[in-house]
């Protein structure tokens, strides 16, 4: 009973470590899997674990947004693309272990370790502040986005537009204009043609 009680009292902590660990494992899997489909699925794991972390912070709206946007839209898009490409095992190639990769992993680990001491000093500063009950709600997020962060929020639209145009430019097979595609030109042509018809005997 006591165990259960302590468990339920410590539940948020336990859940945090569980899902934080899961998200990390998922992230490492995204990196290490040769098969893109496996990698995409691992990414779903990461994304969903992070959504759980948001819930633990009682930011329900953000958690929902995270699930819908990332897991629901983006990863699904990835999977569609991967399936369309339909890569064979030969194209994917085999994993090779080299000394260089080991060195790289070592350096990366060293960077991670170097970041630890900084992060360790953090919770003290933040947990002492009482959390506003409306934190993370749709209303607060909306107010922030259209109030304090209006300009960055609007800037994202330019950013996404630019990214979209960039994607189209790079991916479209042929972007040299096709005359028949232009509605205005078509209308002009039509007018001119009818004009010509009148004049012809």
């Amino acid at each position: 009973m006591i165990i259960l009680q302590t468990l339920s009292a410590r539940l948020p902590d336990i859940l945090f470590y569980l899902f934080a660990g899961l998200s990390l494992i998922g992230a490492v899997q995204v990196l290490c899997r040769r098969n893109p489909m496996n990698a995409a699925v691992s990414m779903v794991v990461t994304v969903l674990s992070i959504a759980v972390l948001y819930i633990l912070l009682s930011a329900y709206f953000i958690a929902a947004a995270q699930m819908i946007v990332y897991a629901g839209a983006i990863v699904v898009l990835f999977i569609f693309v991967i399936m369309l490409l339909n890569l064979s095992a030969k194209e994917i190639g085999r994993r090779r272990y080299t000394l260089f990769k080991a060195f790289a992993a070592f350096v990366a680990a060293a960077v991670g370790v170097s970041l630890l001491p900084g992060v360790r000093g953090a919770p003290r500063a933040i947990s002492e502040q009482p959390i506003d009950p409306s934190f993370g709600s749709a209303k607060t997020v909306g107010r922030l986005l259209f109030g304090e962060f209006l300009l960055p929020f609007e800037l994202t639209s330019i950013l996404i537009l630019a990214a979209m145009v960039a994607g189209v430019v790079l991916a479209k097979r042929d972007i040299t204009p096709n005359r028949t595609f232009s509605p205005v030109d078509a209308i002009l042509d039509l007018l001119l043609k009818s004009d010509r018809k009148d004049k012809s005997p």
Partner: protein
Amino acid sequence: MESLIPVGLTDLQGVYPALNLAVAGIVILLLDAFFPMRSKLLSAWITLIALHLSFTCGLHRLTSGMDETFFHGAVRMDPFTHAFTVIICLASTLAVLSAPKYLRLRDCHYAEYYALILFSVSGMLLFSAAEELIMLFLALETMSIPVYCLVAFTRDNEYSTEASMKYFVMGAFATGFMVYGVALLYGSAGSGYFADLPRGAASSPGLFYSGMTLVLIGFLFKIAAVPFNMWTPDAYEGAPTPVTTFMAEAVKAAPFSGMIKLLIVAFGFSQAVHLWMPAFIGIAILTMVVGNMVALVQTDMKRMLGYSSIAHSGYILVGIVASVKLNSSEALASVLYYLFIYVLMNAGAFGILILFSHKNKDTNAIDDLVGLGRERPWAAAFMGIYTLSLTGIPPLGGFFGKFYIFSYAIKAGLTPLVIVAILTSVMSAFYYLKIIVAMYFREPSDPQHPAAFSYEGYSVFLIAMLCFTAFGVIYFGIFPKTPLTLARLAAASLIPAP
């Protein structure tokens, strides 16, 4: 519940230079959708006009000394920002002027080119105005993402696409660090506003300094400081030359604005300065030495100019360190002056390369310039002016740029740094003079058939750009007063006089 703080028309007017460009970009896209056959040159003109409007707006605001914040403090329009608005718009104009003919030669003259440039520049302008971390980050990305695409704009060229890919991957890598840094800084200070950040150092120094390091790394990547410079030569070489011009100037100059602002406003208190300054001195030395040394062995001009741009970042870092150490707006003004001149002379050098680019081949190798002095004396003379200015020969602008920066660095007691800087400048003379030697003093390997220099890349735009830059390098070298006065005005808004 507090009600929404309204955003008014004045806020939109405040960000007019950036807004104007974004709207122009959208207009170009729409025009291209409806008038695909007529939109190309029109887009170029719209781009130039939009850039010109932003430029004049920036210049007007700079001279009138406007200093206000907009959008609840997300952006601050102070003279420093206006100065960068002017520099960035000028640099982009020069890059756009060099583009149309080259793109037509490569069969990829699309309106999207101009739209992407405009989006990128609007990002830069907001970036230089940002007073808040999220704003800063988003603006930086708005600036970068179009450039990744522009590098690959000649899509059939595999060098171009490979360069773009590398640049994109490395850029994403750097962005990751930067976002992490932003998160840590926000976590430490509980606010993203630059002015609030120093209190993070008091409440949780660990978070703060890790965040500071990571954010600065993001910037150092963008300005191509060693060891975050690896992408530069590849991207410069692979990109279509007008895009390289754009990257070497606007994309290069813009990150300095945010970095200087952060270094002075957020990380300008003595404890932080003691930490980042030695690191920056080390990076400056590395950057100057590596950039100049590797440039020595290059045979491709674009690649060489890529390394030289790395080296120039080093000189600018020297200026930044000196101005923070002296806490002097005059020293900071010399950095702005240097950027201004750098934009002019570099644009010119790339412009000459564009002038001689052929239908399917660039004229990039130094060997390709042999005999230019005899065949095309005017073009060779222009190239000579740019190279001599890049070397730092008086009375050209490049000399005074370096001269001012170095003399303030000496004043700040950074003599060892200046010695390295001067030695590496001397080193740089070797490879810059290689160009002049090739143009004037080397005999073609086959004297019977000297290289034919045809102005295939000729266009009125490009000639205008070359004349302007050459004139500017000479004029603003001999008469540095106007840009210097404006730069001092701008710098004084960031470092008020003691």
